C-alpha cells in the first residue's frame, strides 16, 4: 500500500462526496430520523401521563404535581385553554385548582377540584393521574397515607422509554448508511464507470483503492454515529469506551461495505444485496425495542457486538473494560471480513489481476 496514492484517492472521494446524493443522504438521514422519532413518535410513545394545571392561587398541590418525575406536568394559564388542550389530546388530564384550595382543605372543607380527562388517553394514565392527585391532596392536607406501597419493578429494570429504545436503531442506521452504503456504492460506482480500470493502470494498487474507500466510510460512520448520539442526548458515559466502540462499529460497517462492494458488479446487484441481507445488519435493534424477547438471539447478529457496547456505555454507564469482551468479538468478525475482502477483491480488476 502506498500512502500517497491512497491519500490522493481519498482526497478525490472527499471532493466528490458533497456532490454525491448518497453522501448527502448519509449526512442528513440521522438528523431527519431523530426529528421524526422525537417530533412524531416521541410524544406518542412517552410513557408518562401529560397533566395540565390551572393554578392562579399558587397551590402546594400544583407545586407537588410539577415536582413529580412520573408525570409530565405543566402550568396552563386558564380553564378554557386547559379544556381545549385536553380535548385535543395534547394533555391526558387537566386540573383546575381554585384560589384558597389549600386553606379550604386544611380547614376540613371539601373544596371542588375539577379534573378534565381526555377521552383518547390511556386508561392507565387516567388511573395514575387520579391516584397521584389524591395522594398529593392527602399530603397537602397534612395527613399521612394509610398504607405504605412497596414498588417492585419487574421486567426491564431500566424502564427505558420508547424513544430511548429507538436510539440504538438511529445510531445503527447512521453508521450503516455511512459505513456500508457509502463505501460499497463508492466502490461499485468505480467499477460501473470503469474508472477503477483507469486507477489500476497508475501506480495505485487495488489495496490503495480499498483502503481509501474504507477510510472515507470509517470517518463518516464515526462522525454520524457521534452526531446521532448527541442529537438524542445520549453522548454520555465513558469517553474511551464510547470512542472505541464507535471505532470498532465503524470498522465493521466499512468491512461489510467492502464485501458488498466487491461482490456486486453493478448498482442493481448491490441493491439486491442490501434488500436481502439488511435484516442481518439491523436485526439487533428489534431486541432493544422489545426487551421482553429472549435477548440471547440478538447475539447471533454481527452488528450486536458493537451496538450493545455503544448502548451499554451511553445508557448503562459501562466502561471500556466492561465492554471489551464484546468489542473483541466484533474485531474478530472484522478480521474475518477483511480476509473475505482480500479473497474476493481479486475479482475486481479482471482475471489474474495483480492486487
Amino acid at each position: 500500500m502506498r500512502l500517497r496514492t491512497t491519500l490522493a484517492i481519498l482526497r478525490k472521494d472527499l471532493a466528490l462526496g458533497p456532490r454525491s446524493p448518497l453522501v448527502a443522504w448519509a449526512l442528513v438521514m440521522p438528523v431527519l430520523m431523530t426529528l421524526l422519532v422525537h417530533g412524531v413518535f416521541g410524544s406518542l410513545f412517552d410513557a408518562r401521563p401529560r397533566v395540565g394545571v390551572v393554578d392562579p392561587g399558587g397551590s402546594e398541590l400544583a407545586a407537588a404535581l410539577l415536582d413529580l418525575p412520573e408525570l409530565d406536568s405543566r402550568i396552563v394559564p386558564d380553564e378554557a385553554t386547559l379544556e381545549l388542550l385536553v380535548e385535543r389530546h395534547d394533555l391526558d388530564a387537566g386540573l383546575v385548582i381554585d384560589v384558597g384550595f389549600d386553606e379550604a382543605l386544611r380547614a376540613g372543607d371539601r373544596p371542588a377540584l375539577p379534573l378534565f380527562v381526555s377521552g383518547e388517553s390511556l386508561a392507565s394514565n387516567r388511573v395514575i393521574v387520579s391516584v397521584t392527585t389524591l395522594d398529593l391532596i392527602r399530603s397537602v392536607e397534612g395527613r399521612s397515607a394509610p398504607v405504605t406501597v412497596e414498588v417492585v419493578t419487574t421486567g426491564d429494570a431500566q424502564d427505558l422509554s420508547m424513544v430511548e429504545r429507538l436510539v440504538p436503531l438511529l445510531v445503527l442506521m447512521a453508521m450503516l448508511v455511512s459505513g456500508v452504503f457509502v463505501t460499497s456504492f463508492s466502490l461499485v460506482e468505480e467499477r460501473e464507470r470503469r474508472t477503477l480500470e483507469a486507477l489500476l493502470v497508475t501506480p495505485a494498487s487495488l489495496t490503495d483503492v480499498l483502503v481509501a474507500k474504507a477510510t472515507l466510510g470509517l470517518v463518516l460512520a464515526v462522525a454520524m454515529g457521534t452526531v446521532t448520539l448527541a442529537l438524542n442526548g445520549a453522548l454520555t458515559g465513558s469517553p474511551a469506551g464510547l470512542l472505541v466502540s464507535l471505532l470498532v462499529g465503524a470498522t465493521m460497517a466499512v468491512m461489510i461495505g467492502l464485501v458488498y462492494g466487491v461482490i456486486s458488479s453493478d448498482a442493481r446487484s448491490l441493491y439486491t444485496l442490501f434488500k436481502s441481507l439488511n435484516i442481518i445488519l439491523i436485526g439487533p435493534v428489534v431486541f432493544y425495542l422489545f426487551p421482553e424477547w429472549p435477548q440471547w438471539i440478538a447475539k447471533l447478529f454481527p452488528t450486536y457486538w458493537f451496538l450493545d457496547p455503544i448502548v451499554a456505555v451511553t445508557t448503562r454507564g459501562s466502561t471500556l473494560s466492561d465492554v471489551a469482551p464484546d468489542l473483541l468479538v466484533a474485531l474478530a468478525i472484522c478480521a474475518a471480513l477483511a480476509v473475505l475482502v482480500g479473497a474476493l477483491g481479486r475479482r475486481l480488476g479482471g482475471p489474474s489481476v495483480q492486487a
Partner: protein
Amino acid sequence: MTQSRPSTQTTPAISVQDVRFSYGSREAVRGLSFEVARGEVLGFLGPNGAGKSTTIKMLTGQYRPSAGRIELLGSDLARHREELQGLIGVCFEEKNLYPSLSGVEHLRFFARLHGVKDLDSEALLERVGLATRGRDRVAGYSKGMRQRLMIARALVNDPEVLILDEPSDGLDPVSAQTIRGVIREQAEGGCAVLITTHDMWEADALADRVAFINEGKLFALDTPEGLKLAFGKRSVRVRVRLASGEVAERVVELDGEESAEKLAQATRGGELLTIHTDEATLEDVFVRMTGRGLA
C-alpha cells in the same frame, strides 16, 4: 517525472515475447511477439475479438500473461509493475471519467497518483483543445471533449510509453487532427506509442509500423507502405478523351521496369483527362491476408 528510468535508450520501449493469455479454456492471445522502439508509433490493428484489448490489458499490468514475458523500458513488467505503471500513459476506449469532476480536477487527481507535483494542467488542456472548458464538470462535456480529456489524462506523467485504444473515437476531423498532432509530438519526444484503431486511414497516416492481429496471433508487422506494396494491388487508372470524342479508361499494372513506358503509352493517343493511382488500403491488405474485415 519522479520515477527512476530503469532502461537504456537502446532497448525497445515495449518488448512482447511469446505472450499467451486465456479466459478459462478460451485462448485469447496465442504466442504474440513484437517490439516498439522509443519514438516509434505502432498501429495495432485487428477485428473485434482479435485479442487487441487483452494485449493492452497485459501491457498495462491489469492482466498477467499465462505464458511469455513483457518488458517495458527494459524491465520485466511482472516484477516492476507499479514502477513501470508510473512511466506509462493509457487512454481507454471506454470514456471512464468522473462526471462530477472538472477537467482540471481530473488531471490534478491523476497527477497526484503519479506523484507529479508540477503539472501545468492548463497547458495540457490547451494542447488537446480544452482550455476554455477545463473548469467545467465532465458531465457537461460532449463525447469528443471527453475523448480529448482522456488523451490529456494519459499525458499527465509525461509518459515514456503511451498506449491509446481508439484515440480518435468520437472526434470531429479537426479535433482528430489535433490529437494526431499531439501523438506525433509525443513520439518525436522519444515516447513509444502503441495505438489501436479501426480507422485505417489514421493508422496509415500516423503509424510508423503496423501490426495485424487476428485470433490472438500476429501475422503481419511492417510499415504501412511495406504492407501495401507486399500485399496490395499496384496499378494506375488513366482516362483519355480520344479523337472520336469517346472517353477511354486504361489500367496500367506497375509490375516491372517497363511500367513507366506502359504508363507513357497509356496517356498517348488523346487528351489526358485524369490519372488515379489504384493503391491498396490497409484494409484491403488485411482482408486479403485474413479473408475477413476489420469490423
